[in-house]
């Protein structure tokens, strides 16, 4: 026998006993059990003693000795809950105005959150339908700032658009790459089927591997071979319907026009019909032409590393390691370019990041803005918070009314926890009603929201079984957050105090004030932001861009050679029309796409210096036509025949780029660009040819008579519709093969601010909502305060207080709070908006008047809100208020 004194009874039966037996019996029974165990140790082996101990333990589990797990008294809570609901309902009905404020305010807040949530959800859903999306990557092309391999900084943002040879080279060098899919830059092709003729703006020359990589459904045709042969075309369903109606398009032919730089004119055979692209695709198209068409006509481009016209995506297999792959890329580039000093870099982007997280330029389609999403989410939360503060304020302010109820409940024996659950339950009832309001509001406002953001909103995202737990969870959370403070305050009343007649709690008043200040700080912040966004946008729209954009009609004919051949005729005929001022041809117009070029210009010390800059190839009249101001030299002129091949006009920024501070000095210097040599003949004043987010870059404007894309026509403003009709008639007379596609330059140019306009609209809407909800709450609070002070006001009036004193008495409290809120909101708004304005190269200064105005607006609205109530109580007859008790 081992030393019995040191043996301990087994632990787990003890724990079991401690759990099951009544606590008041534990000491005695544990002691008894231990004593018996010790006795047994002397009598039996340790193991047997332990066994007896365990067995005895089990025999202890008798009803008399067991702990009470359910409540000891028999009690059906049903009646209590019924009473809770009854009281909640009576409270809602009794104070209809407060209930309406609470429910409507919260409803609007929740509806905003809903809509913003839907928006964020749809932004996040981009490209998620590709089943292989986690294995799809694309490369971006960039240039390093220096040849030093240690210096990793780039010259500018990378481009997604790049060369062709990189694709096959990657496939060749990296076995982990399964499929490479390359496609051209977006081509604008005129497609013709008999009399049906449309300019298609979304067409890509696409690799045959496309259907292996992207999850697009080919409804007809073979996905493996559809895009293998030259002159194959795959149409989306709606495009096919557009050209062929209800006929089966497969195997039919479409005539395709030339797309500049692709030499692809010819008869295309429809080899596939695919489903229309989901709207959440980061690039979209109406038709795909086979890349082999392009390759067949211009094979040398596919070998040239410096020719930019391709997007390269690829699919990898499971062995792919992103980090390791990135490590290998610099070596790969050096090996392929056969130049250890190359400044060319390629980088990797996952398909999951291309829509929201890519910072590269020259995207194949539009991209979303992550920061806008954050901004909208924050605004949505702001509004919800403001609405919840209303709820908290109104319930705590009215807590005095219910203090008697709490006192009585407590003296009857209600536990604090059940009171808390009662008040939380009440807030849940209100949140449920708000939720119903919110759903109604969402359904009503959905079409407007589509107009607001320019995005198609599907209510289907909301009505989905997955959203049910989210909505329920959100409701519980809101009910809890909004209801917890009132619940804690109300349930904390001591019954002795409240039944004796407690009047006021100072901490509650202070907290309420704090919350009102917070609410109004948020509202004033939103107002100030809105004003700043407005002034900045007006600044953008009203700024003199340095060129004439008013009543400028622009016809996009997409480099059509037949049009260019007749350009002189068109111009002459157009200018015969008295309502047309002038007409000019060019390859780019301000706000549209432009290529980059490398240009050599003679510097001051006589050597030729190579620099890159955007290039606008223009017709002879472009400069006077757009009202560009010459600061030095002369413009192109018909008097100088050599202008067509050996002259160059540049802008001031370009002159500075080559080291000429004084523009006069560069006139007459030699230049060499795209195989042309000659002299610089003129310098134009800088004009904003891109959006005002960017500074004016150096620009060259070489004279190119026959490679234009746009015909711009300056028209007189009167009888605009008639003039447009006349231009259209003339167009179809001279260029019958080309649809008449026109737009107005100012509209096109302002389209660059699409995101900013959305931003402005959303801010305006939401700040109005925010201040409206905050004021609703304030109205409720003011009404309540006035009610509370009816007697006081009566006595004051009897003692001789006049109307003004009373109004001031009732308003001063709130006015003070609003002043504090202005002081808080101003620096925050100033900081936030400075950050926003940094995104514009041309921005307004934030001046003090904006904050004064924002504060004044808030002040005015608040004064208006509470004055109603103050005046009403000030005008009340003291007899009525003092008579009744």
């Amino acid at each position, binding site marked *: 026998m081992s030393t019995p004194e040191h043996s301990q009874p087994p632990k787990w039966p003890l724990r079991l006993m401690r759990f099951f037996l009544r606590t008041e*019996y534990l000491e*005695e*029974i544990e002691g008894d059990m231990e004593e*018996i165990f010790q006795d047994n140790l002397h009598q039996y082996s340790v193991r047997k003693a332990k066994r007896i101990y365990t067995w005895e333990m089990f025999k*202890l589990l*008798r009803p008399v*000795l067991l702990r009470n797990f359910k409540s000891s008294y028999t009690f059906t809570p049903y009646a209590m809950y019924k009473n809770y609901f009854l009281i909640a309902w009576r409270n809602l009905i009794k104070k209809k105005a407060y209930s309406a404020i609470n429910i409507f305010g919260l409803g609007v807040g929740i509806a905003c959150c809903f809509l913003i949530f839907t928006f964020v959800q749809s932004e996040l859903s981009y490209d998620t339908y590709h089943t292989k999306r986690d294995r799809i990557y694309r490369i971006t092309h960039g240039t390093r700032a220096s040849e030093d391999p240690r210096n990793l900084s780039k010259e500018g943002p990378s481009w997604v658009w790049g060369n062709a040879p990189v694709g096959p080279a990657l496939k060749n060098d990296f076995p982990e790459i399964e499929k490479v899919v390359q496609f051209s830059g977006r081509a604008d092709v005129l497609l013709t089927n008999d009399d049906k003729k449309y300019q298609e703006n979304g067409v890509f020359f696409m690799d045959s591997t496309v259907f292996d990589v992207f999850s697009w459904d080919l409804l007809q045709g073979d996905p493996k071979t559809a895009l293998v042969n030259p002159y194959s075309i795959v149409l989306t369903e709606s495009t096919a319907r557009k050209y062929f109606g209800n006929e089966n398009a497969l195997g039919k032919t479409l005539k395709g026009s030339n797309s500049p730089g692709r030499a692809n004119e010819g008869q295309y055979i429809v080899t596939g019909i695919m489903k229309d692209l989901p709207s959440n695709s980061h690039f979209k198209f109406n038709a795909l032409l086979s890349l082999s068409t392009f390759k067949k006509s211009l094979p040398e481009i596919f070998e040239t590393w410096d020719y930019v016209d391709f997007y390269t995506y690829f699919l990898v297999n499971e062995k792919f390691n992103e980090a390791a792959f990135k490590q290998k890329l610099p070596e790969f580039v050096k090996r392929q370019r056969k130049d250890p000093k190359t400044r060319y870099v390629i980088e990797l982007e996952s398909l999951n990041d291309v829509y929201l997280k890519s910072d590269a330029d020259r995207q194949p389609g539009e991209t979303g803005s992550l920061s806008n999403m954050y901004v909208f989410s924050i605004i949505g939360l702001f509004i919800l918070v403001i609405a919840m503060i209303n709820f908290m304020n109104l319930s705590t302010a009215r807590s005095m009314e219910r203090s008697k109820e709490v006192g009585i409940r407590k003296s009857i024996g209600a536990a604090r926890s059940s009171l808390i659950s009662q008040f939380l339950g009440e807030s849940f009832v209100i949140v449920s009603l708000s939720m119903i309001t919110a759903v109604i509001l969402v359904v009503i406002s959905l079409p407007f929201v589509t107009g607001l953001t320019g995005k198609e909103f599907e209510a289907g995202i909301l009505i989905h079984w997955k959203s049910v737990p989210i909505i329920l969870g959100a409701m519980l959370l809101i009910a809890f957050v909004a209801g917890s403070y009132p619940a804690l305050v109300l349930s904390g009343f001591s019954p002795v105090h409240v039944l004796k007649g407690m009047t006021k709690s100072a901490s509650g008043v202070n907290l309420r004030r704090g919350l009102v200040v917070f609410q109004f700080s948020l509202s004033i912040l939103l107002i100030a932001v809105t004003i700043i966004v407005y002034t900045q946008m007006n600044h953008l729209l009203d700024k003199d861009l340095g060129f004439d954009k008013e009543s400028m009609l622009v016809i996009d004919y997409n480099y059509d050679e037949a049009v260019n051949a007749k350009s002189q005729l068109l111009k002459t005929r157009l200018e015969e029309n008295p309502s047309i001022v002038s007409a000019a041809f060019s390859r780019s117009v301000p706000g549209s796409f432009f290529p980059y070029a490398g240009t050599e210009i003679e510097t001051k010390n006589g050597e030729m210096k190579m620099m890159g800059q955007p290039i606008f190839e223009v017709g002879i009249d472009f400069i006077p036509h757009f009202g560009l101001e010459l600061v030095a030299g002369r413009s192109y002129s018909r008097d100088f025949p050599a202008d067509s091949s050996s002259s160059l006009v540049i802008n001031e920024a370009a002159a500075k780029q080559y080291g000429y501070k004084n523009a006069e000095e560069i006139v007459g210097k030699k230049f060499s660009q795209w195989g042309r040599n000659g002299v610089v003949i003129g310098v134009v004043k800088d004009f904003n040819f891109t959006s005002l987010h960017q500074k004016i870059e150096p620009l060259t404007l070489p004279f190119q008579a026959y490679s234009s894309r746009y015909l711009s026509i300056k028209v007189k403003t009167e009888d605009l519709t008639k003039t447009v009709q006349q231009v259209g008639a003339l167009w179809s007379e001279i260029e019958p093969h080309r649809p008449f596609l026109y737009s107005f330059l100012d509209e096109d140019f302002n389209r660059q601010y699409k995101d900013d306009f959305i931003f402005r609209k959303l801010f305006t809407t939401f700040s109005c909502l925010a201040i409206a909800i905050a004021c609703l709450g304030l109205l409720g609070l003011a009404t309540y305060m006035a009610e509370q002070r009816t007697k006081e006001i009566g006595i004051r009036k009897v003692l001789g207080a006049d109307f003004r004193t009373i109004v001031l008495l009732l308003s001063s409290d709130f006015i003070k709070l609003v002043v504090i809120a202005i002081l808080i909101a101003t620096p925050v708004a100033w900081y936030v908006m400075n950050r926003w304005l940094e995104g514009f190269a041309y921005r307004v200064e934030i001046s003090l008047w904006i904050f004064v105005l924002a504060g004044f607006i808030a002040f005015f609205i608040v004064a208006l809100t509470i004055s109603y109530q103050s005046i009403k109580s000030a005008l009340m007859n003291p007899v009525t208020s003092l008579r009744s008790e």
Partner: protein
Amino acid sequence: MKKTKLGEFEELVLLTVAALQHDAYGVEIKRELETRLKERLSVGSIQSALKRMEEKGFLTSAFGEATLKRGGKRKRIYYTTSHALKVLEEMRAIRADLWSSIPLTASELKMI
């Protein structure tokens, strides 16, 4: 008598408590009864009888001293109440009365 029924086992435990006087705590009661009844009893049965009788008002209890053997836990000493003694007396009287009223033959016959 009717309201507070005393079970057979309970009566035995109650009598033991009365007999043990100031030594009447769980283990001692168990030991005493085991020797008298010549059978093993579980702690649970003794304890549940004690608790039930305490609830019915036959017993009161108070903490006694703690010993090392008990792991430092105190004993609970049980005392009989006057009501209990009265009930026990009544029971004995009823039993004795009944015994005396049994005809001799019947008991003799049964003894065979």
